């Protein structure tokens, strides 16, 4: 039987056993809910897409509705004007909350009129209606005094608004995308890397590893385990990304950067590389322990390195995506999985740099796996207490 079949059998077992477990299904459901919720909830809670309705009692001065609409556009607030036949109908509208406010302005603009709310007054609505009424009445006075409509319009033209370094929607979503990528990779490494760790310790603790290793090579067992759990990780990442993209498109919450189609495979690739690196380390360190508590101790150095790499990426890259910190971290296997997708999200890394970084990381994984597999082979059958890396290395020596 080929080694690959043996590795695949191990991987398949992991996928079937863990993929069917309640924990995995719940975590996928929870993730999806979280993603969809984080897009949908703000829309529901703050309702910023919904227009505020303002009632206007008829007859109204000509041009009031149009002026209110123009003004509301300047205030970045959606407003809809609802005409009411009389005061009683308007009050009923306020009471049943079909309108937020009711304006009553004399049709001949002989007075400023009134604005009425159900309970609390809304500053923006008050200013909006006030400004509209004042503008109409000023216009009427000035027109009567012989000022031409063109002059009037010119005088009422608002100042232009500009920014020295304008923040575009794309910038905002890049920043968001970079952060989400780093968090996804960190979460992936922790949740699925630790699944590898606990899996190794469980096999050792239940002694099933002795039965398995009577036919499977230790390095094949480790590889199959990393592979199988990694596929589950990728499935979860896929669900996450699909949920996020789907909800973003449906709710139209923010503009996806033009680089999105290329960024997703890159994110998946670095997820795989980061997971492979860290789960290999966690897997063979787990073999040194004979109990779960020892395993979490043994894995502390890996946890520290992962956290440090994450912070280097988040702080260093966001500060200066092409700075020296970001550049160096690109070529270190532990930090590359965090740094490269972030730099790519900021469009601050070229394809050559990415390729070199991938190559360096793949070599890093290969070296770590070769060392790790031997330590794993030496340690996984020793059940007496916690082993040292060096002893495990020696005991597996040829």
């Amino acid at each position: 039987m080929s080694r690959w079949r043996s590795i695949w059998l191990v991987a398949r077992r992991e996928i079937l056993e863990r993929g069917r477990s309640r924990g995995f299904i719940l975590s996928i459901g929870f993730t999806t809910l979280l993603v969809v919720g984080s897009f949908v909830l703000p829309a529901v809670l703050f309702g910023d897409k919904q227009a505020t309705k303002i009632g206007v009692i008829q007859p109204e001065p000509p041009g009031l509705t149009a002026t209110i609409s123009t003004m509301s556009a300047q205030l970045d607030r959606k407003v809809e004007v609802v005409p009411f036949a009389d005061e009683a109908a308007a009050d009923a509208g306020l009471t049943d909350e079909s309108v937020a406010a009711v304006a009553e302005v004399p049709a001949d603009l002989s007075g400023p009129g009134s604005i009425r709310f159900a309970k609390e007054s809304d500053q923006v609505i008050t200013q909006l209606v006030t400004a509209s009424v004042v503008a109409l009445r000023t216009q009427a006075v000035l027109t009567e005094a012989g000022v031409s409509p063109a002059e009037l319009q010119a005088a009422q033209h608002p100042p232009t608004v500009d920014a020295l370094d304008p923040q575009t929607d794309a910038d905002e979503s890049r920043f968001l995308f970079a952060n989400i990528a780093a968090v996804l990779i960190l979460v992936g490494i922790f949740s699925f890397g630790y699944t590898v760790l606990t899996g190794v310790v469980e096999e050792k603790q239940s002694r099933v590893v002795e039965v398995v290793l009577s036919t499977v090579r230790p390095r094949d067992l480790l590889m199959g385990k990393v592979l199988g759990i990694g596929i589950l990780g990728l499935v979860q990442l896929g669900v996450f990304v699909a949920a996020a993209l789907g909800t973003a498109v449906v709710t139209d919450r923010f503009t996806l950067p033009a680089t999105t189609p290329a960024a997703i495979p890159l994110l998946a690739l670095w997820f795989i590389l980061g997971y492979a690196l860290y789960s290999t380390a966690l897997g063979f360190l787990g073999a040194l322990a004979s109990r779960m508590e020892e395993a979490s101790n043994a894995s502390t150095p890996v946890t520290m390195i992962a956290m440090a790499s994450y912070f280097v990426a988040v702080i260093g890259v966001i500060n200066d995506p092409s700075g020296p910190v970001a550049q160096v971290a690109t070529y270190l296997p532990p930090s590359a999985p965090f740094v490269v997708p972030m730099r790519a999200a900021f469009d601050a890394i070229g394809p050559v740099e990415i390729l070199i970084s991938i190559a360096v990381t793949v070599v890093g994984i290969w070296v770590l796996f070769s060392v790790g597999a031997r330590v794993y082979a030496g340690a996984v059958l020793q059940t007496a207490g916690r082993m040292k890396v060096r002893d495990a290395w020696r005991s597996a020596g040829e």
Partner: protein
Amino acid sequence: MLEVIDLAKRYGPVVALDGATFSARPGRIVGFLGPNGAGKTTTMRCIFGLARPDRGEVHWQGQPVDRAARLRFGYMPEQRGLYPRMRVGEQLSYFAQQHGLRRRDADAAAARWLERMGLGNRSKSKLEELSHGNQQRVQLAVALAHDPELLVLDEPFSGLDPIGIATMTDVVRERAKAGVGVVFSSHQLDLVEDVCEDVVIISRGRIVAAGAIDELKARSGRRHLEIEVVGSDGTWLDGHGELTVIQRSGDRVKLLVRDDVDLDPLLARARAAGEVRTFAYQPPKLSELFMEAVTPAADPAKAPVAEVIP
């Protein structure tokens, strides 16, 4: 045929194996005996490549054992171990596939062996939901499901009730009849005597006795003699120097004699003393052979026997 050749293994200062050599032939059941810490488990681990010997080799069909050969072996380790939360049927099928069976064949073998072990309705149960004895049956089924040519079982009967033992011994006998070589270790020597044709006795990492049980018995220097003489005062034995009295109860006496003792004078004495109802001359039990082999004593007839003979 499995050949274990001159295996030596140290764990730090502890010598686990010190030149152990023996073989197991197809169709024969070999009892692999030895006191605790004698090297049984280490030997088995060396057969499966789970421990690397410092010296010596294990051969299968004349070739050093490699992974391809091990796929034809079945192993039940002393420290039982299966996946606690995995379903029993899938678990059996998984291990059979790891031994090279196709999935469909493995599924069929799993179902067949669960049926054979009386667990046909537990295929979908998780292992941890089974009783200890049933988990042990599953463990044996894991060793058997891929239809191995060699079975290596480390203490397969420990912790089982008599029904469990009967099931297990039936299966082992049946496999041997089908031509499978079986090596199993046990401390239940009466059971070994019932089940095995051959034994290998290991002590302090060395093989101290090996061969067919009957031959070993015949070769042993000691014999049992049970004599019942009615109507004597029991003094007829006094003064006979070549005997060790093990037990005396009423008219019955159990003796240990060397195999070169001439029995005629003894029988004549007994007849003179009274009516002889029993005069039974028997080879030693396996447990005595075992004690004899693992206890460094000069004279076999003077070896401490009282401890092992009830």
